[in-house]
């Protein structure tokens, strides 16, 4: 039994905290989100130099062989800085799929580029009718000579605007809802028939609607084997839920700190508002939820790392807790900052917005709760 950071984790935490402190204050981040790219290319190169982009990949492909706990440490710090660089899309989602499902040749070629910062990827998985139900894939890939023709609509594809390559989840067999017959394709976003409608997201990021209209790809565009990508997708989303939850825990800690600081200096009725018991208890409750969320994160990281049925269940339980804790901490942070809490000027509102969208991503509290209920009823 051990929850202390090991040497590598301590180093990761220190370097990430230093980066946020020196290079990523809130106004810098605001300027990045308003820039054309939406983040900083030089930061991305720095992530590569610091080895962050290599963190979860196997050592045989040049990665650091880090586990989920290492990722949790890094993501928590990135959460504290509200970092918008496309780490989740490229490294955790697409990187996870390449690592789990790619052929050895693909792993060798693609991972090397990712960890050098030379290849950014976006995952085109969700569809308007399906959203977080991964197996509900209506996008089709039909054999066409020695290649495939892709048709479909992928919605809210995170970080698609600057991706060098999309991973498109398409159906090569069965019907929407089947776990079999799901295949991954590497698609160049600039190729004929791929249409991107890019837009900003309200949490400071970028996303796109991706429409595929008779997009012709070669057989070489298949990532890994045909028809059986579902287990890799599911495992990747389970890990992504843990990573996203770590980001949420970093945000919640930051919000609690900011709120406590503010209540110590903001004066009304001739005294700091932190003197009032009703507000003290509210902050005590925020503190409790921050700690409970962190504990649940550790449970999720440890259990999801083992894989299997328990991993999916752990990720769902974690997402339920992050949803409820995030709502309480985010809403109360805004409430206790009073009018300032709803201004665009203050960082608090921006942490709140990201926390709100984290609940939505990869299945909300209610969606996961319902899945867990159905599972218990079917047992």
């Amino acid at each position: 039994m051990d929850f202390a950071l090991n040497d590598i984790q301590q180093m990761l935490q220190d370097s990430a905290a230093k980066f946020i402190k020196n290079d990523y204050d809130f106004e810098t981040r605001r300027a990045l989100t308003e820039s054309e790219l939406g983040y900083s290319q030089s930061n991305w190169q720095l992530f590569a130099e610091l080895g962050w982009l290599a963190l979860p990949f196997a050592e045989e492909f040049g990665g650091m062989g880090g586990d989920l706990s290492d990722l949790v440490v890094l993501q928590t710090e990135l959460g504290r800085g509200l970092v918008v660089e496309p780490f989740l899309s490229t490294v955790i989602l697409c990187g996870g799929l390449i690592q789990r499902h790619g052929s050895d040749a693909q792993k060798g070629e693609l991972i090397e580029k990712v960890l050098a910062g030379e290849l950014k990827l976006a995952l085109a998985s969700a569809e308007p009718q399906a959203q977080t139900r991964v197996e509900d894939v209506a996008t089709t890939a039909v054999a066409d000579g020695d290649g495939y023709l892709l048709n479909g609509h992928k919605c809210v594809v995170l970080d698609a605007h600057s991706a060098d390559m999309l991973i498109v989840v398409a159906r090569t067999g069965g019907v929407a809802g089947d776990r079999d017959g799901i295949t991954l394709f590497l698609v160049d976003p600039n190729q004929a028939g791929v249409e991107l409608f890019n837009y900003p997201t309200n949490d400071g990021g970028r996303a796109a609607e991706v429409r595929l209209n008779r997009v012709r790809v070669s057989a070489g565009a298949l990532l890994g084997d045909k028809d059986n990508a579902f287990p890799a997708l599911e495992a990747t989303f389970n890990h992504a839920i843990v990573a996203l939850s770590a980001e949420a825990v970093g945000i919640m800690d930051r919000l609690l700190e900011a709120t406590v600081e503010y209540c110590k200096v903001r004066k009304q009725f001739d005294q700091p508002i932190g003197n009032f018991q009703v507000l003290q208890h509210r902050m005590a409750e925020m503190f409790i939820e921050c700690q409970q969320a962190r504990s649940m994160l550790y449970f999720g990281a440890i259990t999801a790392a083992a894989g299997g049925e328990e991993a999916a269940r752990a990720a769902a339980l974690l997402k339920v807790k992050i949803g409820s804790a995030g709502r309480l901490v985010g809403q109360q942070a805004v409430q206790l900052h009073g009018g300032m809490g709803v201004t665009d000027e203050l960082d608090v509102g921006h942490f709140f917005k990201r926390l709100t969208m984290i609940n939505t991503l990869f299945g909300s509290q209610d969606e996961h709760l319902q899945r867990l209920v159905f599972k218990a009823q079917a047992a």
Partner: protein
Amino acid sequence: MNIDFTEQELAFREEVRAFFREELPEQVRYKIDNGLRISRDDQVAYQKALHAKGWAGVNWPVEYGGTGWSSAQKYIFFNEAAEAAAPRIIPFGLSMVAPVIYTFGSEEQKQRFLPDILASNVWWCQGYSEPNAGSDLAGLKTKAVRDGDHYIVNGTKTWTTLGHYADWIFCLVRTSDTGRKQEGISFLLIDMKTPGVTVKPIITLDGRREVNEVFFEDVRVPVENLIGEEGKGWTYAKVLLTHERTNIAGVAPSKHRLSTLRKLLDNPPAGMGNLRQNSLFMARVIQAEVELKALEFTELRVLSAVSTGKAPGPESSILKIKGTEVQQMIDELYLEVAGYYALPFVPGQYEDGYDGVRIEPHFAPDVAPHYYNNRKVTIYGGTNEIQKNIIAKAVLGL
């Protein structure tokens, strides 16, 4: 980051399991598992069995006969105890007054009191709260006035759990009215058989006698029963309250209760409805599981910090609040599961010698009384509101 046990810890777990298999009487296990009360004799017999094995002083230092267990071992022991439906260890002697005696008591007091506490030869109860000193405990009024080599004690203590079973009571008494109110408090051990001590029952919402009022009328207590220095009782008491708070969280028993509930839902006995089909109810079950799982890891984080020599972090202060909230969440779920059979109130039906009709399903009769009585857990040991004051002050610096 891991929650793995070492080989030695796994071997220890086997030893603990074997102990409960062999030493815990079936009728005691049944009563605990169904929320029924066990007798004083059952309780003492269980604690004596622990003592015979050398496991009575779980938190005690080895030099006084304690186990010297690591945090992981304690975690294993309490989890296996809950899983085996063993009674809880009554805390007043073994985990409350004993640490005060071995930390602040004289050599003579240690020799006089500790062996009988360890062997459960003497039953202790706690004299802290008073009718007008609850959350504001330092406002206590029970007076101890020095008279030669005795104190004369006058006053009333209340909410004295199992005081009617007790041989001795440890009390906070006022020895001075000057200065800060905390500074006039002393820690005194009183034999319950001393003339002038009377115990009166308080009947709680479950219809039972668990707590009492204890009256002191010109009770003569030898000065050698004073722990440490006069006026330092508040400092000693605070040490003890920290112990109390972590005990109250009850994470391991909650895990056992929730998993027992899940088994009932999967295989409902005759007389119980099929609650599993009620999705709203099942969502509450899952939410309780989420909170409990988070709490279990909060506790593990505290244990892990302690075992590496660090002081428990701020996360320890949430154990009492969250632990009791989760207990009450589970109580509510049981109430729902019992349905109509929560209504019959037949307190004697599982007592030895009962020969009337027994109400089924077997778990139902104690569900409502337990729910009523267990509202106490967010109140005692420092109300959860007081705990939030503590977090605001001590952790958040407000």
